[in-house]
């Protein structure tokens, strides 16, 4: 290997190290709950793992099948009634995981342009602070283990 080339590679490697550690977001057991084809909305779930060195902040979510996708939380009132609230962003500290599960925090796909059927798979992209996207294929299922 020519020396100049080696140096360039080395410089590149050093530069890569100097850049703040990449936000790393991985997904365990991602899925979308199958709903009847006349449904205008559907929900998605997964465990989000921050395998990087920095806190990851999710600033938004999008998918090709929904006109509008949001992160929702579920609040329980003193009388036991529950409501969904919009989460504008969600922070996951380095090394931590965050669970999106039925009756809990979830992805809310609204204004569906098409209702994917069980067996389909939908790409869901999470927009992170810093401008990157973390995307994963979410299979559509009638139910999953995380259904409890």
């Amino acid at each position, binding site marked *: 290997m020519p020396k100049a080339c080696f140096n360039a590679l080395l410089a590149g490697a050093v530069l890569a190290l100097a850049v703040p550690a990449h936000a790393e977001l991985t997904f365990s057991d991602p899925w979308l*709950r199958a709903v009847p084809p*006349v449904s205008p909305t*559907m929900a998605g779930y997964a465990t989000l793992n921050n395998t990087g060195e920095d806190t990851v902040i999710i600033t938004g979510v999008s998918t090709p099948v929904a006109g509008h996708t949001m992160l929702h939380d579920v609040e329980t009132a003193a009388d*036991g009634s*529950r*409501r969904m609230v919009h989460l504008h962003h969600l922070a996951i500290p380095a090394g931590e995981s965050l669970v999106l599960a*039925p009756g809990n925090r979830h992805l809310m796909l609204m204004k569906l342009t098409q209702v994917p059927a069980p067996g389909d798979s939908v790409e869901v992209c999470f927009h992170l602070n810093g401008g990157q996207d973390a995307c994963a294929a979410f299979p559509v299922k009638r139910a999953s283990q995380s259904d*409890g």
Partner: protein
Amino acid sequence: MRKLPYILPVLLALLVAGCGKQESDLPVNTRLGGEFTLTDHNGEPFSQAQLKGKVSILFFGYTHCPDICPAVLARVAQVYRQLQEAGEAGQVQPVFITFDPERDTAEHLKEYLPWFKADIIGLTGSLAEIREVATQYGVVFIKDQAEQDYLFTHSDYIYLLDDQGRVRKLYPADFTIDEVVTDAKSLL
């Protein structure tokens, strides 16, 4: 700790009694429930009296709800299928009451519910009628302020009714399928 030896036989006795039961020992909840008339998914009047003779699994929700409601519908459908496999589905009727009559019309319920394959009867009506039934069952629902795509704050219990239409048990939305199957069978 010294009390433990005394508690254990009692627990065992309770367990044995529980396993051996033939007749349902589910208490009748006299404070909840009662007669009502709404409109079913075929647009026909439907009165609670029509449920008599069958054990029913009654629950409230709305079809624009993506998280808890379809989860409950899917789980009720699983209960129904388990009873079907046991040859007892004919005596059990799932009933879904919407509190969103504006969007959940009879026609919409008719399109929405069959997907769950559990022979679910969908009920709608005027807001006043639905509010009255909700009150009978202690269900709270509040339409959240929003122009479009409004949501509801709501309680999400599931009610097991016996063949006389009396409330015998309430379950949370994340109920155990086996528990409801066992309880429903105990009422047959």
